[in-house]
């Protein structure tokens, strides 16, 4: 038990530090994106501690391994050494960020006073690919199909944009 607690605090600290690194490095886009990678990997570590192995693997494969590589690809393609968009950020976005942060903080403080509920025991094979797969293709099949449709729309959109540039 103690080892997993130690690992939890290590990963949690890493996640917080790298998340701060992402926000504070906002003028250095590449450093910011790489901090985000570290956050993703730290979160994956926490998922492993929660027995959600398959989520952890996909967290690394999809978020750390693919999506942020694409971010970096775009940043490097446009050769953004510093964030050229930073000065123009709208006040509304900042306001929304502050409100969301305050809501999350309030919720955390409330939980600190009441304490967390006892977690129910995990079912057999929890977090394995078989269980996740069965759940996805039975209980949540509609959501899977809807997200598939969304991805298809994105592909078609990308194709149209690419064709227009060549034409």
């Amino acid at each position, binding site marked *: 038990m103690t080892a997993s607690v130690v690992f939890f605090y290590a990963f949690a600290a890493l996640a917080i530090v790298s998340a701060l690194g992402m926000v504070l490095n906002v003028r250095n886009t*590449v*450093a910011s994106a*790489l901090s985000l*990678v570290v956050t993703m*990997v730290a979160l994956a570590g926490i998922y492993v501690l929660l027995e959600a*192995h*398959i989520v952890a*693997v*996909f967290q*690394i*494969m999809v978020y*750390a*391994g*693919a999506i942020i*590589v*694409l971010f*970096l*690809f775009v940043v*490097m*393609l446009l*050769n953004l050494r510093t964030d050229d968009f930073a000065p123009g950020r709208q006040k509304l976005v900042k306001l929304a960020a502050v409100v969301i942060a305050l809501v999350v903080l309030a919720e955390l403080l409330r939980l600190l006073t009441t304490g967390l509920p006892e977690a129910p025991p995990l079912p057999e094979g929890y977090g*394995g*690919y078989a269980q996740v797969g069965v759940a996805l293709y039975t209980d949540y099949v509609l959501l899977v199909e809807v997200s598939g449709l969304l991805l298809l729309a994105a592909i078609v959109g990308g194709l149209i944009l690419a064709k227009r540039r060549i034409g």
Partner: protein
Amino acid sequence: MPVEVVIKALFILAVVIGAFAPILTWVERKQSAVMQDRIGANRADVAGIRILGLFHPVADVIKLMTKEDVVPQGANRVMHLMAPLIAAVPAVISYAVIPFGAVYTFGAREISLVVADPDWGLLYIFAIGSIATYGTIMAGWSSNNNWSMLGGLRASAQMISYEVTMGLSVVGVFMVFQTLKLSDMALAQDSTFRLLGFVDVLFGVPLPAWLDWLRLPHWGIFVQPLAFVMFLTAIMAENKRPPFDMPEGESEIVAGYHTEYSGMRFGLFFMSEFIEVIVIAGLVATLFLGGWAIPYLSQETIIGAISPVLGVGFATGACLVLHVLTFFLKVIAMIWLQMALRWSLPRFRYDQVMDLCWKVLLPLSIANVFVTGLVLLTIQGGSA
């Protein structure tokens, strides 16, 4: 338990990084020399003894260690220093889930020859491999050099594309073996199947008994031949060695992402490619060549044959040694194949590499998944 894990991890590290990787730098030169009718590296000597030039890896390491470690002006220092580590570490730790032997029972003790054996072993390798991309990208970006930058850009596009294909091309394999656990996959290949069994299952024509002898090992390469070719192509492209060396592209962009690296940091990029060659060999051997399995001689057969003469304990130990040797023999065969391909194929052009991925390998691997599913549905119930 932890002591056992440490011993296994040290064994793998000693074999892969201590023995295979340094010798591979020599093998690469020697094999290319043989293929091109040259003599190859043979000059390094210790007190006049040359032993085929096997001292060259040692000389290389001394040279790399003593060279100046340059960080170019205007480079991002932290990232520049970190990038080689991020490239090398994933390559090394991938080996944790590749089994180099089966599970052996010595009295009450069970010894399984794999460092870590999670249910999602194959996914672990893909996930770790996707992290290695950052080493290349960071090296390219942080060097403050246009060639490096181009190399990093090419690396990010190429590695993302081939990750997709690499994953999809082995879906057929884990449909056949019904698992993602690499030790179970190797175990499933420690058997044989009837070569003409499909006649029996599909058409209901019982085969004559003598044809029962016509068997093939139940290896991935025999049940999923297309997946073998596609996976090997994709994972070699992922390793970005020639003919897929777009991120380095000596003839176009100097040395690509590691143009600005010198000394041991360059050596780390160099070594991580060789370590990945070994990982690829081990992974392909496990997925497609039966891992530690000896064809036609399953574990029970071997132990059953030896134990009446020399006792069960000795038989199990002998089986263990045989399996480990078989596994590394297969690894060496796959390393040879990769080296032979590297020295016989001309380089691709960048757009050809991307076309191969998205227009050939991707549709083929999706088709492979469909066909495998159909076949599995057809023969369900019957024994193939």
